[in-house]
């Protein structure tokens, strides 16, 4: 895995920012005693870089320096000298817990399910052909694209729905094209094979979790536990990946392309990215976005593996401190336990966000080793 090194070379923004702030605010450090170093998945970089996060952590005496790495590459990193590792998934965290010397069990301060963002035309065609179900009668209905918010922040059309994984995977298996779907002919952009854009599963967490969800759904609701199971779904997973051509390595870039109207009309992202856009973005950036929750999905469990006592304290702080939980919500994450903070913060956006994840089945994730082998076979 040559990527491990490459990824490791990406010295974290967050780290640099934290450093900058630290030296800048060096004068008043009555409490600033603990400097902790950690390696994190890139999807949390913005959270740790947020000046308010830096401030909130400093109030508890923490200066956090982070470096980003692909979650699935962390177990290959030399972790000596780090206080914590914070992958975007439970499986690599479990693996780290086994291999590294840890201080207590892993902590899961927040999570975020994977969703598919679709442009309106694509979502409607998928729905018309039984590949998705759009939520109707929702609190949307106001004055159209880019207009003022309705009660749930929606538009004239349905802005939330369910991606039906069974029919979708069957279509993928058949190399179904948009041209073969009814209702697509009126939209010139809907042409070619129907596929969901994901990140590169070999290097990136969301791309790997896509394969976890797809293999679970395709194998009759069974999580892969051995090489045979990997074998069974390998041809389908290969299709899902090969059709995409060049893939990006961080979940940020395909989402930005999507909201820019560039590229494929179906993109796999974290719900946190959508929620963060809705809460902090300018209205104009939302466009004709529709959020499809796959009926079988995987949540990205942001799992902190403590490697030192300080690392453990940080994990506990992130899990319990109301201020930090609120900040995690600001970045679109769902804190573990009581959902009140997330529900309150997304109250204005229920046309897009399914707060209760009704009817969404959470697929278990295979071990890191199996998932890596799935990814390599799909990509290679």
């Amino acid at each position, binding site marked *: 895995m*040559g*990527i491990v090194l*490459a*990824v490791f*070379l*990406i*010295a974290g*923004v967050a780290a*640099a*920012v934290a*450093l*900058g702030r630290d030296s800048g605010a060096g004068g008043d450090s009555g409490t600033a005693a603990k400097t902790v170093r950690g390696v994190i998945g890139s999807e949390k970089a913005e959270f740790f870089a947020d000046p308010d996060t830096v401030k909130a952590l400093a109030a508890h005496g923490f200066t956090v320096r982070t470096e980003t790495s692909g979650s699935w590459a962390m177990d290959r990193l030399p972790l000596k000298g780090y206080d914590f590792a914070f992958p975007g998934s439970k499986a690599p965290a479990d693996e780290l817990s086994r291999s590294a010397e840890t201080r207590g069990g892993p902590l899961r301060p927040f999570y975020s399910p994977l969703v598919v963002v679709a442009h309106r*035309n694509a979502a409607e065609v998928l729905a018309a052909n039984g590949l998705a179900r759009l939520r109707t009668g929702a609190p949307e209905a106001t004055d159209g*694209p*880019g207009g003022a918010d309705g009660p749930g922040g929606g538009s004239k059309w349905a802005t939330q729905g369910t991606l039906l994984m069974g029919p979708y995977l069957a279509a993928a298996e058949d*190399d179904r*094209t*948009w041209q073969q779907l009814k209702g697509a002919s009126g*939209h*010139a*952009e*809907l*042409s*070619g*094979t129907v*596929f969901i854009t994901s990140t590169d599963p070999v290097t990136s967490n969301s791309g790997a979790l896509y394969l976890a969800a797809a293999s679970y759904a395709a194998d009759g609701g069974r999580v892969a536990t051995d090489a045979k199971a990997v074998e069974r779904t390998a041809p389908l997973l290969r299709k899902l990946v*090969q*059709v*995409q*051509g*060049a*893939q*990006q*390595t*961080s979940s*940020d*870039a395909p989402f*930005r*392309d999507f*909201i*820019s*109207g*560039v*590229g*494929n009309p179906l993109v796999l992202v974290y719900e946190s990215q959508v929620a963060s856009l809705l809460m902090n973005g*300018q*209205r*104009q*950036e*939302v*466009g*004709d976005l529709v959020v499809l929750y796959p009926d079988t999905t995987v949540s990205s469990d942001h799992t902190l593996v403590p490697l030192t006592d300080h690392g453990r304290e940080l994990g506990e702080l992130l899990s319990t401190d109301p201020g930090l939980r609120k900040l995690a919500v600001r970045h679109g994450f769902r804190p573990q336990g009581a959902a009140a903070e997330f529900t309150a913060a997304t109250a204005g956006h229920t046309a897009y966000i399914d707060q209760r994840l009704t009817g969404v089945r959470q697929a278990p994730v295979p071990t890191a080793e199996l998932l890596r082998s799935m990814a390599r076979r799909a990509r290679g």
Partner: protein
Amino acid sequence: MRDRRPPHARRPPYARRVLLPLLAAALLLPLAACTSDGGDGRGSGPGRSDDGRARTGTLRVLASSELSDMKALLEEARKATGITVRPTWAGTLDAVERLASGRADGAFDAVWLSSNDYLRLDPEAAGRIASETPLMASPVALGVRPATMRRLGWDAASVSWAQVHRAVAAGDLTYGMTDPNRSNSGFSALISIASGLSGAQAALTDDDVRRAGPKLREFFAGQRLTSGSSGWLASAYARRSTVDALINYESVLLSLNRDDDAGLTVIRPRDGVVTADYPLSALTGATPEARDAVRTLTEHFRSTAVQREITARTLRRPVVAAARPADPLAPEQRRELPFPGSRSVADGLLSSYEHRLRRPSRTVYVLDTSGSMKGRRLAQLKSALNGLTGHFREREQVTLLPFGSAVKQVRTHTVDPADPKAGPAAIRADAAALSAEGDTAIYSSLAAAYDHLGPDTESAFTSIVLMTDGENTAGRSAAEFEAFYRALPEARRVTPVFPVVFGDSDRSELEAIAALTGGRLFDGTKEEGPGSLDGAFEEIRGYQ
């Protein structure tokens, strides 16, 4: 606009060398520094010498050369945000190479290319991108003359690549396109066309490319103009009324309509496009301040008001829904064709284009070997010719026509696909045997080159390269040559002369030859790097 040279293009080491001084020079030209009012408090006031180092309020950006049309908007961004962008213009591939090799580390805070598609196929380069956000978009399109549209009876909104192919194969449509090995627009066009004609419903594979081979060959048989830059392509097109269409970015074609009254009907083929999306990309090595600056600039450029400015001025498409595309931009959406997933497919396609699909080239090198070339100059010429032989294309016909008081000899070699090393070896041997002697019969020798090429200018891209180190002292006069050229049948006049200024040659004399024949002047007066004889010969490859 030499914006892209994908790496498979077996660039000889010297080509890499020639690039550096250019980039270094560009580094020292801060944009908008002279217009600063110095009152923005961000430390980039006037009168400060610019050493290319990191500085608060200044963002060092490695940018695609075609983005130079954003200068006014960058200046407005400086006024609005206090951030001065110091661009270093480069080709996309050059930028990717610099990133991958680490040479950009510490020298730049961000890159801004027409597209990161190619960059992503290089793990070393891709690993240095921390974040990227598209700022505007322009798809590859086909611009067709009004008369041709009427003749073909096309409905612009429904034309597909397959339909374009049929028209070309039937001999009803000819076009010009930039060289995919040197220009991002040409490269994107090649991907679009191969996807369209292979019927590939997903990302292109080697099989798709192979299957589409016959159709692609027919398609590229209709290519009448090739160019290393969009600018020269447009002027060559304006000159050649027999060329029906141009393939380039939609924004370039619409700008020709706006600025030059080209009257083109701009078609985005219905089966899909490849779009340049100009992502402003922060580098992993940038300081927190620089990354904040990238974020601030990104927000500025993505605001609705600035998006409206961008689309109005550049005729590229806005990337936020609230800003509507400028007037001439058709609102209907197009499918984005997936970019090949591996370097091998992308490079394989380029190599097929070079060696098998495109029309071959026939080039006559009219080389001054008069007495004044003796010594160092002749050595330079031989070395430049040697450098060239490293990357002649298969099927290419190369003629060396050295002259002094008259043409000394005419030696032609073809690069045979069955034995691609023999031709270049023979050319090297001929080059080694050149000797300097006699007067300088420029015009007689040029006329001989036209005679050598003969009446067939259809089956290959024909061109003449003229290298001379002095003024015309023997044979025909300039006026006699002009009369000769004007008396040629139209088919023979399409061959352009690309003169290279070298030694003591008379620039205005050479400029007149380029203007008369529809060529372009290249500078070979420098010792090395761009503007040297090596560099000029290398750059002319994009036009052959």
